[in-house]
């Protein structure tokens, strides 16, 4: 198992006021994202646990892309990865923000 951790400065705060949200399932090709509003508005942290070792650069790319595109300030996103592809990860991260912002009910 590999534990990866990324901390970014986030240009915009995630909207809404929900304290936490959960999306996804830990299954083959899938992942779960627990998102908690616990950081200062200008920071975003991602903690990843994955059984697929050696993909650090890919996670770094996906997560930095995510923080650049989405308003993720104030959020800590904790991931349990079941071997998802990068595009699935990106979708889940975006979904996690939508749910904690309250856009998805």
């Amino acid at each position: 198992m590999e534990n990866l951790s990324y901390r970014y400065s986030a240009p915009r705060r995630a909207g809404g006021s929900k304290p936490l949200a959960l999306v996804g399932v830990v299954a083959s090709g899938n992942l779960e994202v627990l998102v908690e509003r616990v950081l200062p508005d200008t920071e975003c942290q991602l903690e990843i646990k994955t059984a697929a070792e050696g993909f650090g650069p890919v996670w770094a790319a996906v997560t930095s892309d995510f923080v650049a595109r989405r308003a993720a300030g104030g959020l800590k996103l904790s991931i349990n990865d079941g071997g998802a592809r990068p595009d699935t990860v990106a979708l889940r991260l975006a979904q996690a923000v939508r749910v904690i912002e309250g856009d998805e009910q």
Partner: protein
Amino acid sequence: MNASTIEASAPSHVLRSQGVSWYEASARQRIDLLLDAGTFKEYIGPEQREHSPHLQVFDLPEQFDDGIAVGRGMLAGAPVFIAAQEGRFMGGAFGEVHGAKLTGLLRAARDLGSIPVLILFDTGGVRLQEANAGELAIAEIMRALIEARTAGVKVIGLIGGRAGCYGGGGLIAGCCSALAVSEQGRISVSGPEVIETNRGVEEFDSKDRALVWRTMGGKHRRLLGGADAFSDDSIDAFRETALALIASTPGFGIEVLKAEQARLASRLDRFGTCGDAVDIWKAEGLSDAQAEAVPAMPAPDFITLANKVQEARHDAR
């Protein structure tokens, strides 16, 4: 965490639970859409990070809730306890933490005495990586369940997910006050592959889906009396069925056990030499044409047929 933080699959302009497939839904979607909107309060939610301590040694990923969400909510305005297994995480299998959450919920129900429990089964049985803890969890759940029923609590099982209700899950289901099952649901102790390995493909071809469903699937279980109600695959239908079962199921005690003994003994007498489910259905009074039509029969027609053939028993289980 509460219901509004859970992902949902239906757009908000559609009636919340209508037309949403139970089979396709996640455990949390089922809870969210089964219960009255926004009423779910979870106990030991994923943010507590109480995952399994036993998977790391196998290099297997954990899930924050260890594959089950338990808590309390409202169903048609009345309180219920609810537990939903996530069948896509490790096959919904019972591990130490997973099982303990349900054990604690049932013990609470026992002590309060007045709040029914809904168990949304979606499980392959014991999680092998924690086999002994899983087996113990199942035994502790069964004990707590019977203690709760003895205290007057209705424990209703809902079965219709991807993993079915296998192994120890099937035994827990057999302890419930009543069961609702859909077409997709399966209830069995041994799985199809295991029977084939043990007895050979001539006795049981695990790849013959029609055979698997005739033997273990929701429609057969309803016709046999293994399940009390058949539900369409929608969350809406399961909700209506759950409400009906909460209102109608028997209590528990020696009279119910005696009735159950008689019911099962009679089943062996009547069907003990039947070779296939179709033989059982015909012995119960289905015509050849009806028996052949069962697998493809839509839910409303099947429910009508089943009610004619096998009246739901309210005095045994």
